[in-house]
């Protein structure tokens, strides 16, 4: 077992444990903390798969931005009575069966569909090539995303205003 595989198993196991914690814990604040750690672990997996710029973006946007927002909202709305109540609804057993079924179908597909030959490039910094790609071939999606961000900004302002719906 190479060092790379060992790190992958470590990060992967940690990721699965943390995400199970996210969907099972009663205290939403703990769940949000587990989720932010899981997103950080995911950045480690990106580094392992050669995505250095992606890992930085994941840490900056997800762990630094989205998770702080989620933690704020959890602190706004959570009362002590809320996190002592059961956090799953009555149909959690069908949900569990469906989740296991989704995993089984995906793994079955991955094992039966023939994959092309794996070719590995040496690890190299990706940010320069990624910048050229984003402003070259991917220019249209790049601009559309800026529109989506503008719409989200306006939408968040509209919904967040202090008035009755």
């Amino acid at each position, binding site marked *: 077992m190479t060092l790379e595989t060992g790190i992958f198993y470590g990060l*992967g196991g940690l990721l699965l444990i943390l*995400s199970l914690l996210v969907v099972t814990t009663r205290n939403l604040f703990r769940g949000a903390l587990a989720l932010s750690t899981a997103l950080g672990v995911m950045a480690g997996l990106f580094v392992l798969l050669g995505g250095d710029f992606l890992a930085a973006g994941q840490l900056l946007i997800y762990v630094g931005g989205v998770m702080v927002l*989620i933690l704020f909202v959890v602190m706004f709305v959570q009362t002590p009575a809320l996190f002592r109540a059961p956090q*799953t609804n009555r149909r959690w057993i069908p949900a569990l069966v469906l989740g296991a079924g989704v995993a089984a179908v*995906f793994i079955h597909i991955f094992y039966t569909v023939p994959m092309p030959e794996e070719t590995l490039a040496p690890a190299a910094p990706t940010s320069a090539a*990624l910048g050229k790609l984003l402003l070259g071939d991917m220019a249209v999606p790049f601009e559309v995303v800026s529109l989506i961000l503008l719409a989200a900004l306006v939408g968040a302002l509209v919904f967040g205003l202090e008035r009755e719906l």
Partner: protein
Amino acid sequence: MTLAHVLILSALLFAIGVYGVLARRSLIAILMSVELMFNAANLNFVAFNHFLHPDNLWGHGIVLLVITVAAAEAVVGLALVIAIYRNTQNLNAEDLHLLHD
């Protein structure tokens, strides 16, 4: 570490996200489970890029787009959560049937 390892990890992560979306009661927990599913998809994009097409970076570019759209989704979703909480003092998904009765 081969492609199959990463794909199985992301399948398990996605399944955990599906379970969270279906079984959790709180709207915030549902949003967090959706984030888990986004990340499972991102892991697949990066893995396919790394193992099958190492000569270009389209997988990385698409992951950047997904991260941005997920951030926008989280912002709008949390604004909605705050608006719902302010009006009903309740965030249980099963109690929100305003249009139902």
